[in-house]
């Protein structure tokens, strides 16, 4: 299975958390930007985890979700799991 990209995650983040049209923080290189700095709180991260599971088919437990602090951590988790299959 192809690796998930930052652009795909960006789309999922926008669908999860909503975003202002003039809100540009999700543009550019945000791979290592903490979710908190993107104004995504712990609930938003839980919602992202839910969508990863239902849209991408990769189960994310709440414990794992709590440990996901940056977009890179989400992509690494998803792509590692997909590679194992």
């Amino acid at each position, binding site marked *: 299975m192809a690796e998930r990209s930052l652009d795909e995650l960006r789309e999922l983040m926008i669908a999860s958390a909503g975003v202002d*049209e003039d809100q540009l923080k999700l543009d550019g290189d945000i791979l290592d930007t903490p979710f908190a700095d993107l104004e995504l709180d712990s609930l938003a991260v839980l919602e992202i985890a*839910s969508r990863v599971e*239902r849209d991408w088919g990769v189960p994310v437990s709440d414990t794992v979700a709590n440990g996901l602090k940056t977009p890179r951590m989400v992509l690494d988790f998803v792509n590692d799991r997909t590679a194992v299959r």
Partner: protein
Amino acid sequence: MTAVITGIGVLAPTGIGLEEHWSATLRGKSAIGPLQRFDASSYPVSLGGEVPDFVTKERVPGRLIPQTDHWTHLALAATDLALTDAGITPAELPEYEMAVVTASSSGGVEFGQQEIQRLWANGPRHVSAYQSIAWFYAATTGQISIRHGMRGPCGVVVAEQAGGLEALAQARRVLADGARIVVSGGTDAPFSPYGLICQLSNGLLSRATDPDQAYRPFDRAAAGYVPGEGGAIVIVEDAESAARRNRQPYGEIAGYAASFDPPPWSDRQPALGSAITGALRDAGIQPSDVDAVFADAAGDPYLDAVEAVAISEVFGDYAVPVTAPKTMTGRLYAGGAPLDLVDALMAIRDGVLPPTVGVRALSADCQLDLVRDRPRKLRVRTALVVARGYGGFNAALVVREHNERRV
């Protein structure tokens, strides 16, 4: 301490913004019509008052749209209008001196229905994480608090239509305890299939299909009320603080009282009258000082008679002008009394009472001087707002023009 109103934000079926609402109200233009938010044509109740032309993404930050219910969207938009009207930039004030106290009657029922449908159709992982915060009564207060960094005393009052006055009374207490400004008032959004079904159970909704005849409080033909969405958010502030900012208040909250009805099996009388007399006592005024009453106007023959008798017992038959502009919007639940308060403040400002529309022949039980069909010119210094909530809540609030010498 004197609690004054320095900012008003209206999101009502009669219009978005204070002036749009007030001019439609004075024109006697009813906003009641067939529900558009969902197809209610097969439901026993199919009329309502909906906020027209509300485009959520133009008035609510994108991030908050998927996180909150329509009822919160309306309140966030109304809060923006109220803060602007009051000339307040929250970032410039101490965060612990700004408080938020709103009323809510049913919480985020539309959001809740949507997520429960996802649960049953697709499973738990399809339920939005925001369900945990979007549906419950305190969501609106919480989101306003977070958005504007208002970390003073925050709360929500749940008492159906009476809650709108209870919230304002709580705002006054919070000011007395040292807060500088309070965002108060309330909104509601009762139009989802689940929300409407929940309301049907009280047996008080109008089943009429003709908007002109659907909601006629105090009329011989009264047969229920029409529900509506929206309400008003106001900025409540200590008069000294307003004076320091050189803001002329719309008026002051002068008195308030609440009472609770005895249970249906009791032979004791309804307690609305004691809420009214209590509010007058709290304001330190006599019945003859009241220039107008903004009625609860339940639209049910029994409840109308109870209110009319309570008003007559305090003021005398036909002794004070009574009006119910909510005949143009429907009953807005938690948003209803705050909108009545706004209309009372506008009556004080403009010297005119808004009309009650749709009433053709007063019930013999209602010996009221009802302002019907057309506005009535009248110098209004003091007005009484009455609100009742399903289940026995009664509240009354006295609002009067603000005279700086009284500060």
